[in-house]
C-alpha cells in the first residue's frame, strides 16, 4: 500500500517543521482573530442598516458563516501551536497522540467546509445586496411621511439620519423625492388652493412637490440650502438648476450604501481567503508531523528517519480496506480476501 505524497523526515527537518508550524499556527490565530472582528463589524453594520434592506434578503448569512469559519480557524491555530510545541517535548506529546487524529478531521471538514461556503457567499453578495437595497430604500422613502403610523413612525428619523451620515439624497438622486409624497397629510392645509391643485393634478391624489427634505442639504454649499422649488429657475435669485451645484448631496443612497457594504464584504472575502490558505498549510503540516511521529511509535527524539504522508494508501486502496474491514466484521471468514490481494501486489514490483 503506497502512501500518498510521502515525505522523508529525519530528526532535524522534523524539528524545523514543528517550529515553522508553531509560527504558522500563531499567525493563523492572529488572522483568524482579525477575520472574526471583521465579520462582527459587518454584522453590526448590516444590523444598523436593517431598515433599508428588504427583510426577505438573507444578507446576514455571510457574516454569520464567516464568524463560525473564523472561530474554527482560530481553534485550529491554537491546536496547531499546542501540538507543534508538544511534539518537541517527549513528556508532553503522548496526550496529543490520541486527540490529534479526530481534531485534524474536524478541522479539515468543518473549517474547510465553512470557509468555502463563506467565500462563496462573499462572491454572491453584490447581487443580493442590490435587490435588497432597491426594495428596502423604496419602502423607506414611501414610509417617510408616515410618522403617525405605528411600525413606520421611525422611518423619517432613520432616513434623515442615513442621508446626513452617508452624505446621500434619495435612492439614485434627489429627483426621487419629487415622485413621492414625503409631507404627512396632517400638516397639509386642506383650504390652501395650491395644496388642492397639486393633489388633483395626479391620479393617485398625492401631494407632490419639487422639493427635498433638509437632510439632503450639503454643508459645503456657499449659500444657505435651497430645498423647495428646485425645478423652477426663477424661484431663487442666481440659481441655475442645469449647473452642477453643491446645494444638495449629488449621490443617491443606493450607490453609497452598496459601495460601503461591498467594500466591507470584499475586505472580509480577502481575509477569508488568507485564512483558508493558512489553515490548509497548518493542517497539512500537522498531518505530516503526526504521521511521521506515528511511524516512530511516538518517540520524539528518535534519530531514525520516519516517513510522513497524507494518507496511508491511495483513495481506491483506502475504500477497499474499509470495505474489507466492514466485510470482516460481518462474516468470520477473512482467508479469501487477503490472498486475493497478494498476487496483484506481488505482480507490481516484478513489473
Amino acid at each position: 500500500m503506497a502512501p500518498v505524497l510521502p515525505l522523508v523526515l529525519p530528526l532535524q527537518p522534523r524539528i524545523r517543521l514543528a517550529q515553522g508550524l508553531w509560527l504558522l499556527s500563531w499567525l493563523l490565530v492572529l488572522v483568524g482573530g482579525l477575520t472574526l472582528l471583521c465579520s462582527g463589524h459587518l454584522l453590526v453594520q448590516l444590523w444598523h442598516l436593517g431598515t433599508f434592506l428588504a427583510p426577505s434578503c438573507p444578507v446576514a448569512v455571510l457574516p454569520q458563516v464567516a464568524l463560525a469559519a473564523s472561530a474554527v480557524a482560530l481553534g485550529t491555530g491554537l491546536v496547531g501551536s499546542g501540538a507543534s510545541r508538544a511534539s518537541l517535548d517527549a513528556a508532553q506529546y503522548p496526550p496529543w497522540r490520541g486527540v490529534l487524529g479526530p481534531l485534524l478531521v474536524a478541522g479539515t471538514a468543518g473549517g474547510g467546509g465553512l470557509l468555502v461556503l463563506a467565500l462563496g457567499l462573499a462572491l454572491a453578495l453584490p447581487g443580493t445586496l442590490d435587490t435588497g437595497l432597491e426594495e428596502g430604500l423604496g419602502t423607506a422613502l414611501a414610509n417617510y411621511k408616515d410618522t403617525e403610523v405605528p411600525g413606520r413612525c421611525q422611518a423619517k428619523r432613520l432616513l434623515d439620519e442615513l442621508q446626513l451620515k452617508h452624505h446621500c439624497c434619495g435612492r439614485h438622486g434627489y429627483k426621487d423625492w419629487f415622485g413621492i409624497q414625503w409631507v404627512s397629510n396632517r400638516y397639509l392645509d386642506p383650504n390652501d388652493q395650491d395644496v388642492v391643485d397639486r393633489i388633483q393634478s395626479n391620479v393617485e391624489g398625492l401631494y407632490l412637490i419639487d422639493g427635498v427634505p433638509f437632510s439632503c442639504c450639503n454643508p459645503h454649499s456657499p449659500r444657505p440650502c435651497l430645498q423647495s422649488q428646485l425645478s423652477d429657475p426663477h424661484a431663487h435669485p442666481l440659481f441655475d438648476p442645469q449647473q452642477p451645484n453643491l446645494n444638495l448631496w449629488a449621490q443617491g443612497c443606493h450607490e453609497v450604501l452598496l459601495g460601503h457594504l461591498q467594500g466591507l464584504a470584499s475586505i472580509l472575502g480577502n481575509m477569508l481567503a488568507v485564512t483558508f490558505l493558512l489553515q490548509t498549510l497548518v493542517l497539512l503540516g500537522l498531518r505530516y508531523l503526526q504521521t511521521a511521529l506515528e511511524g516512530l511509535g511516538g518517540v520524539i527524539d528518535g534519530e531514525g528517519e520516519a516517513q510522513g504522508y497524507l494518507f496511508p494508501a491511495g483513495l481506491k486502496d483506502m475504500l477497499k480496506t474499509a470495505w474489507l474491514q466492514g466485510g470482516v466484521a460481518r462474516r468470520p471468514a477473512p482467508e479469501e480476501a487477503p490472498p486475493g490481494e497478494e498476487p496483484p501486489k506481488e505482480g507490481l514490483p516484478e513489473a
Partner: protein
Amino acid sequence: MALLKVKFDQKKRVKLAQGLWLMNWLSVLAGIIIFGLGLFLKIELRKRSDMMDNSESHFVPNSLIGMGVLSCVFNSLAGKICYDALDPAKYAKWKPWLKPYLAVCVLFNIVLFLVALCCFLLRGSLESTLAHGLKNGMKFYRDTDTPGRCFMKKTIDMLQIEFKCCGNNGFRDWFEIQWISNRYLDFSSKEVKDRIKSNVDGRYLVDGVPFSCCNPNSPRPCIQYQLTNNSAHYSYDHQTEELNLWARGCRAALLSYYSNLMNSVGAVTLLVWLFEVTITIGLRYLHTALEGVANPEDPECKSEGWLLEKSIPETWKAFLESVKKLGKGNQVEAEGVDAGQAPEAG
C-alpha cells in the same frame, strides 16, 4: 523611632524587589496610556479650535504628554534598579544615587497629582473660550467668499449636525445675526429692502435658522423660516413646538462633551498617580531595608525597612536645622574672613 517600621528577611526582600520590578514595568505601560490620552485630548481640542477662536489653552494635554514621557523614563529606571537590587555587587553602584532619585520621585508624584487636578478644573476656562469663539464663528457664517473664513459655514453646519445643537445658547441666536450672504439676496425685492432698512446696521435679519439646526425626530418636515409666525405654517404654534429644531445650544453641547472627556482622563490619571505613590513607597522600603543590612557579606541576615528614620516632627526639625546650618555656614565663613582681615589690619 522610625515611621512605619517593617522587618525584612532575605526572602521578603527578594519578593519586594521582584514585585516592584513587575509594578514598574506595568507603570511604564500606564505612562504610555497617559501619553496617549494627552495626545488624544490635544487632537480633540485642535479639531474644534475654529469654534474657540484658536485661543484655547493646551496646558492640560501638553502636561499630560510630558508626564507620560517622564513616567516611562523614571519607571524603567526604577525597574532596572529593582532588578539590580538582588545582586549586592550591582546594587553598590546604584547606592549613592538612590536618595536623590527618591526625592525626584516624590516631586514627580506631587506634580502628577496637580496635573490630575487641572484636568477637572479646565472646564471653567473652556466655557468662556467656547462662548466667545462660537459667537465669532456664527458672525462669519455668511462669509463663504472671504478667503480665510470660507470654511466657517461648513464647520458650523457639521458641528450642529454632529453635536445635535443649534446656535450659541439656543436657536434664537441666529435671529440676531445676518447669516445669509449678500451675494444671494435679491436687492430689487421689496421684502429684502424693508428688512435691511428696519435695523440700524443695515443687516438682513430673518427669524429663520440654517438647515443644520433641524431635528430629524420631528414628525413634520423641518420648518426653518418664519419661525415666530404661526400663521405662515399650517397647524403650527411656535410656543409649544419642541421637536422641530435642536433645543440645546452648541456651547452647552461642546462643554458637556469636553467635560466628560476631561473627567475620564482625570480619573485615569488619579488611578495612575495612586499606583505611582505605591511604587515610590515600595522603593523607599527596599532602599532602607538594603541599607539596614548590617553585614554585607551575609545576605541572609534580617534588616528593617522604614519610611522615615525619625517621626515626622523630628524629621521636619532636622530638615529645618540643615537649612539653617546652610545659612549659618555662609555667615561663619564671612566672619572668618572678617576676623582674618581684622588682625591683618590691626
